[in-house]
């Protein structure tokens, strides 16, 4: 399948943001491990790794706006709906389990990881449902 210009731009943005994420994460972990940041700086450094991840969500939004092929856009919207439903459902179930002290605490950034995993699930759902409809 030939990828559209919008898809290439999305790929490029995601790659750049992923590299920035890796740098920010490594730097933040190193700085905190060596107790080199305190006060307001600690807040800024702690938030830095989250920003490229937020950027990836924005990149997805830009892609949906910039993609001119309406069918491909519909497929991606379906994928993101699957991803959102998957991530939010697991987060909700986990939240209740945690509230009743049946499971331990988990950092909320795992919701993002679930969402990215959900994109794969959405791609699989697209493939299965559209093949059945053909």
């Amino acid at each position: 399948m030939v990828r559209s210009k919008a898809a290439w731009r999305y790929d490029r943005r995601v790659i750049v943001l992923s590299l920035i994420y890796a740098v920010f994460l490594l730097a933040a972990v190193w700085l905190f491990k060596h107790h080199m940041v305190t006060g307001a700086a600690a807040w800024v450094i702690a938030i830095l790794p989250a920003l490229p991840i937020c950027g990836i969500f924005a990149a997805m939004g830009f892609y949906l706006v910039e993609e001119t092929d309406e069918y491909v856009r519909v497929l991606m919207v379906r994928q993101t709906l699957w991803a959102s439903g998957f991530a939010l459902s697991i987060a909700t179930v986990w939240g209740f389990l945690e509230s009743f002290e049946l499971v331990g605490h988990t950092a909320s950034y795992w919701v993002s990881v679930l969402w990215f995993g959900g994109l794969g699930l959405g791609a699989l759902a697209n493939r299965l449902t559209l093949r059945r409809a053909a």
Partner: protein
Amino acid sequence: MKNRLKVLRAERDWSQGDLAERLGVSRQSVNAIETGRYDPSLPLAFRIAELFDLPIEAIFASPSAEA
């Protein structure tokens, strides 16, 4: 939605890729429309109709007429 896209394309000896290029969409989109898996938006349906120089209803069957 049923349509005559495949027939019209074959009459002109166009591949799905040829039609996709003329419409400015992906081959995947043409395939999805041809097989009835995806109903195009009104602007795309108009582009298809203009390309074949036919009214929309000569290409796409009305869902109410199908019922």
